[in-house]
């Protein structure tokens, strides 16, 4: 069994193992991808591996026909209706269910420093790797926020006084607890999603529909 001639973009990182398991269950050969973490292209070019944030980029451009990535990545790419532009970037076809995480707003335990900053200073500083999601959340709830984009461990930012709050993805909450942070608000649940290039979705309709069905049942 193969990928029906489709090029599949597979995310390395937290979703990698579950994704390979799922693809293996529908009969796609993932053996080499499992063992070789230097190579990027497998199974005669039908399986390509990359960072989860790059998956929508490859799929949108048609360099991959379909891909798997987290809903958090897709939400963060959404520039809102104003810039959503005159074409669909990717189709979102299936909620794969695994990689379940929650996007949360967290602060240091004890009296809520974010609430205090909002009350006394009128604005709360928020560190995040997801500036668009954080901005939309604060705009959507009518609060003013200064979004500070960080690339590394977000948990460090409130501990050092850089910010009062963070917006981040958490699976078990262990890292938050270990750094004395508590969840104040839940922004949404994120799982792995199957996405498709809009043109491939039309021109390779049968192959894509069949892949969706097999993945749904696996």
């Amino acid at each position, binding site marked *: 069994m193969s990928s029906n001639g489709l090029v599949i973009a597979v995310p390395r990182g937290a979703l990698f193992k579950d994704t390979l398991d799922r693809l293996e269950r529908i009969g796609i050969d993932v053996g080499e991808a499992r063992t070789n973490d230097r190579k990027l292209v497998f199974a005669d070019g039908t399986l390509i591996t990359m960072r989860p944030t790059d998956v929508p980029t490859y799929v*949108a451009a048609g360099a991959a026909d379909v891909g798997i990535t987290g809903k958090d990545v897709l939400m963060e790419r959404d520039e809102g209706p104003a810039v959503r*532009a005159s074409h*669909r970037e990717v189709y*979102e076809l299936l909620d794969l269910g695994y990689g379940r995480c929650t996007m949360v707003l967290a602060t240091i335990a004890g009296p809520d420093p974010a609430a205090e900053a909002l009350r006394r200073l009128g604005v709360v500083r928020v560190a995040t790797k997801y500036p668009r999601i954080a901005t939309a959340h604060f705009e959507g709830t009518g609060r003013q926020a200064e979004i500070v984009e960080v690339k590394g461990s977000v948990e460090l930012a409130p501990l050092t006084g850089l910010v009062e709050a963070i917006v981040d993805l958490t699976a078990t909450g262990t890292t938050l607890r270990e750094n004395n942070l508590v969840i104040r608000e839940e922004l949404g649940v994120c799982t792995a999603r199957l996405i498709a290039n809009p043109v491939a979705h039309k021109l390779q309709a049968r192959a894509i529909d069949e892949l969706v069905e097999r993945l749904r049942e696996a």
Partner: protein
Amino acid sequence: MIHPIPSGTRDVLPDEMRELRAITEALLGVFEQAGYGEVYTPALEYETVLARAALADARPAYRVFDENGEVLVLRSDMTVPIARVAATRYAASEPPLRFCYFAHAYRGVRPQRGQAREFLQAGIELIGSPAPQGTAEAVTVLCRALDAVGLRRYRVGLGDASLYPALLDGLSVPDEDRARLLEELARGDFVGLENELRGLRLGEEQIELLLRVPQLRGGQDVLDAPAGPVADAVAGLRRIRDLLEPQVADRVIFDLGLSRGIGYYSGAVFEVYDPALGMPVGGGGRYDDLLGRFGRPLPAVGFALGVDSLHLALAAEERER
């Protein structure tokens, strides 16, 4: 000295210009032969003119004031200006009217491959010719134009903008829920669409229908499948198919989920795909209510091709040959 130009715009130098010119000449030949006379309209229009049309995702992004304080916009599409021309300059002419154009339009998109803020469109508008004949003529001219350019592997997706609203009507989905469903569909988010549908008071069978129909796409068998609330729209697509020559019909993919991000489409809509390019090369459809907003109610249909997108697809096809 390096002098920059605005993001999303670019200079075209002679080697590329020669290739672009060859494409537009081939297109013009086909358009002229089919009886479509070339027009040109100002890049700047009064905002109130473009505001007469529901442009949605294609709304204008760039505005300036003139010396009288009037708001001018850079046109974001050519269909609305040509609707204005038809109503203003051809107020008493016997339809049908046939126009073609090669003109730049401007949108506030995030610049990337195939998405520029200033882009050259080539297209036709057929005014006063109703469905299905007018639609069949437009699709036929479209295929001839793409053949003349030299694309070999293109396909034309054909759907109907009124199909999903009719389906929602048929299942009595309340107005206040519709906008969210249509938004999810326009974004191609079928997971979001399912989540929204599960939040409504609908039976399992109805949810299944509302999810399945917009994903029906492919050959003619698509037109045999569903009936009920979408029977009218599907019958309309069947009538178009019956009017197409075999070599045009072979290019068509029937797509019951096709929706374009422009609000004025009222019936059949189409989109051009090439496997060498990850995004549509162009598209069009019927806009039977637009001319009425300019005081000359006439059914109309048209399409626009992105000349740069055509060029990219052609170059990619040639590489793969």
